[in-house]
């Protein structure tokens, strides 16, 4: 049915019925995407909805298990990114795809990009001054992404796919990118635009396809107020089925009022993404952290775990200022870290026992003979607590993902936990293991541990946490009690939308009022672009600091 439809409707790109499973994890069930010629099409979805898998399938990096992809009505199978590019689908990813040890010109030659059009687009994007003979590694990251985009544009693609193109771009470049993208509307080619920023979607996109749990759940015409519609599609009815555990959580919250926090962060800053994180984590509670990708949560956990030193702010552990130079310092202060990436945390070629016992032997005084009896006792207790399936006695790499994750947790449970930092511990593991981990985290909290849980699955907040903080743009922007932390609330907070704020202009105005000058400039420019994009009348609430806003919005 699909191929007939696509020939009939003259779509530029049509993917339908796409499915993909990784082992037991279903990444895509029934995803579809239809892009008309001359439109800018947003691809939306909460974390784990299958967005990135769909992108990888479209660009040929991953083969789908089922479904069809048709370009200009002709069905085709794409085996590699190079083939996709040849077929007219060019992507620009978050990470620049340039070889760092070659100069820009040589990089262009590698992809057979014609120089003159490239220069033209570079100028359009506001980087006409770039020296093409400079090594890619010496060009700032933001400029490299512009170079990537100009290169993609120069190859005159039928479909240009921009994956989080504007994330971490400075305001003036973001503005140029949105301008260039917006100007491609109405032509012969199309843009697939992926962004977490709803205001950008509103500014440049014509339609939005929304994915949820591996399925396309809606295609929305982007007009005034369509953000709400998009958010509703992203959420579905999932939120209604969950009973919040208000009783225990309420008790925990009441208790913490007059107690010193186990961990207190004051205006922590680190790297390019974490600017101002302040929160308190108390013994006996599970504190959720909710954020879209790349809002500074990675940096926050790196600082807390002792992997990175903060560039600003203060960290207090049990009321005393703490400065971690090495994870060992954090561990000594009782802060242990559970990574989402199990490849980062496990000795894949070693046994379950050695992996769990690893923290016992790291200190100099533990370098001598191992007390086998004590080690066995601790390890066996941890294995029993987490119900780890150790039938595969050999190397940890032969265990299932869920069991591997349990090993990374068991390592710390075995030694007694004071403060556990969990970074998306249930990512990509089966539902049964997930619920075991939820129970374990609750038990740890009941036993007096403090647990900080970043999760990309919003419903985990009400299942496990007592309260949650929301990070946006490197700042803690909200704190929500578990009882109120249903998915719509969390998602709105994660996008930094207030329940009473819907229009992009208003968001922009608010940013001007509260944010920094740079933020205000972006917000203002986007709002200006949005007004004309949506076709609405120029609003009276245009920002007073509009001097920074461009006059030449598309």
């Amino acid at each position, binding site marked *: 049915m699909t191929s007939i439809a696509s020939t009939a409707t003259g779509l530029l790109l049509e993917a339908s019925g796409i499915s993909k499973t990784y082992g037991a994890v279903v990444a895509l069930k029934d995803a579809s995407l239809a892009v008309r010629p001359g439109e800018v099409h947003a691809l939306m979805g909460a974390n784990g909805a299958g967005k990135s898998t769909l992108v990888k399938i479209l660009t040929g990096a991953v083969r789908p298990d089922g479904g069809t992809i048709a370009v200009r009505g002709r069905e085709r199978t794409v085996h590699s990114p190079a083939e996709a590019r040849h077929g007219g689908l060019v992507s620009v990813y978050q990470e620049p795809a340039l070889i760092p040890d070659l100069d820009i010109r040589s990089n262009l030659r590698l992809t057979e990009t014609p120089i003159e059009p490239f220069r033209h687009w570079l100028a359009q994007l506001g980087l006409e001054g770039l020296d093409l003979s400079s090594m890619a590694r010496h060009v700032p990251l933001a400029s490299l992404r512009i170079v990537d985009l100009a290169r993609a544009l120069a190859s005159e693609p039928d479909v240009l796919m921009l994956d989080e193109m504007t994330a971490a771009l400075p305001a003036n470049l973001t503005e140029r990118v949105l301008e260039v993208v917006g100007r491609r509307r109405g032509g012969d080619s199309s843009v697939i635009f992926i962004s977490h920023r709803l205001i950008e979607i509103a500014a440049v996109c014509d339609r939005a396809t929304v994915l949820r749990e591996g399925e396309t759940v809606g295609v929305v015409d982007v007009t005034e107020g369509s953000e709400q519609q998009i958010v509703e599609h992203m959420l579905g009815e999932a939120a209604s089925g969950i009973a919040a555990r208000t009783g225990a959580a309420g008790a925990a919250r009441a208790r913490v009022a007059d107690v010193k926090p186990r961990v207190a962060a004051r205006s922590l800053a680190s790297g390019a993404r974490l600017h101002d994180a302040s929160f308190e984590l108390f013994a006996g509670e599970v504190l959720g952290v909710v954020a879209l990708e790349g809002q500074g949560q990675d940096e926050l956990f790196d600082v807390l*775990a002792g*992997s990175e030193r903060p560039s600003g702010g203060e960290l207090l552990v049990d009321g005393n200022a703490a400065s971690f130079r*090495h*994870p*060992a310092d954090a*561990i*000594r202060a009782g802060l242990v*870290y559970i*990574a989402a990436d199990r*490849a*980062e*945390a*496990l*000795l*894949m*070629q*070693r046994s379950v026992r*050695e992996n769990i*016992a*690893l*923290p*016992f*032997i*790291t*200190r*100099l005084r*533990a*370098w*001598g*003979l*191992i007390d*086998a009896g004590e080690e066995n006792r601790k390890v066996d207790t941890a294995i029993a607590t987490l119900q780890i399936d150790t039938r595969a006695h*050999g190397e940890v790499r032969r265990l299932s993902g869920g069991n591997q994750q349990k090993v990374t947790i068991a*390592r710390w449970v075995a030694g007694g936990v004071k403060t556990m930092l969990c970074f998306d511990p249930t990512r990509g593991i089966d539902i049964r293991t997930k619920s075991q981990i939820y129970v374990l985290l609750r038990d740890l909290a009941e036993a007096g541990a403090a647990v900080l849980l970043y999760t990309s699955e919003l419903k985990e907040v009400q299942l496990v946490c007592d309260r949650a903080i929301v990070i946006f743009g490197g700042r803690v922007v909200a704190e929500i009690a578990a009882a109120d932390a249903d998915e719509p609330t969390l998602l709105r907070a994660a996008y930094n939308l207030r329940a009473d704020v819907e229009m992009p202009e208003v968001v922009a105005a608010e940013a001007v009022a509260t944010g920094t000058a740079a933020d205000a400039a972006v917000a203002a420019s986007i709002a200006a672009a949005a007004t004309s994009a949506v076709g609405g009348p120029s609003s009276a609430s245009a920002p007073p600091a509009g001097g920074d806003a461009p006059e030449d919005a598309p």
Partner: protein
Amino acid sequence: MSGIATTGPSRNRWLTAAAWRSLFRDRPMIPLLALLLVLVIVSDIVRPGVVGTEWVGIMLRAAVPLAILAACQTLTMLTGGIDLSVGAVASMAGFVVISLVLSIGLPAAIVVALICALIAGLVNGIGVGVFKVHPLIMTLGMSLVVLGAANFWQIQTVQTSSGVPPAIRTLGSDVFAEVLPYSLIVFIPLAIVILVGLRRTGYGRLLYAVGDNPVAARLSGARSWQVLVVLYIISALLAAIAGFLYAGYTNVASVSLVDSAVLPSVAAAVIGGTSIMGGRGGFGGTIVGVLILTVISSLLTSLGYPEAVRQVLFGAIIVAVAAAYTRVTDQT
């Protein structure tokens, strides 16, 4: 090796091959010991009657110093490193002892040689562990430095040496009970310490951990620079001990005596199943690897080829055995 796979009924041949493969993977000593046995049999076929108690003694005497050098490689390779300075350090240690024994006595001379080795190992360890210099570059550079320093010492000391001291010579080249070389008195305790140390001590476990996944080791609180500094010191001290044995074994004082043993020491560890990428292996396999190389070397000698041909064949065989062994035991 592949011939073994055809023992089952032909319908199950593939399955049988897979079963063999997984057996080799779980028990890598089996193919190693089988190869050693085949080589011994071939030796006896090439020169009938050669394999006897005396032959065993000769093999062991040649194998012991190489096994100690191979221990250096095994330990460093477990962390994903390598120690190419063992040849220079061993030669230097042997030479220092021989040149000092007349003036300060044997025990003091040994202590001086060990201190020199310790300094070399400390610098290696600081370079690799603290300044993150690649171990290949660091230890290769160190071997040049040590060689140069030894040469300098050679020029400074007037050649008053009476040759290799008798105690060292006995230790390196004599046998007791007709078969057993005295060097085993040094080697057996060392080997036990290494074997037990790798399995039963926190430090041994950390070597595997740092080599398997440095990020995981760090996140678990291990400070890998401490591990590496100690490791390269241990390696240099072991190399010095091997140097004493080589000096006694060859009865020669030379600042480049042990250079030719560096490649075989790496090869023995690789053949013995220690991954050069780190995290996998052990000293037991290395000992068998050393015995295999020693028998191959003697086999080539007994075939009567000239030195040059033997070197070519030995090098080629090392590469071939290492490649074949990796194929048989790895799962992909």
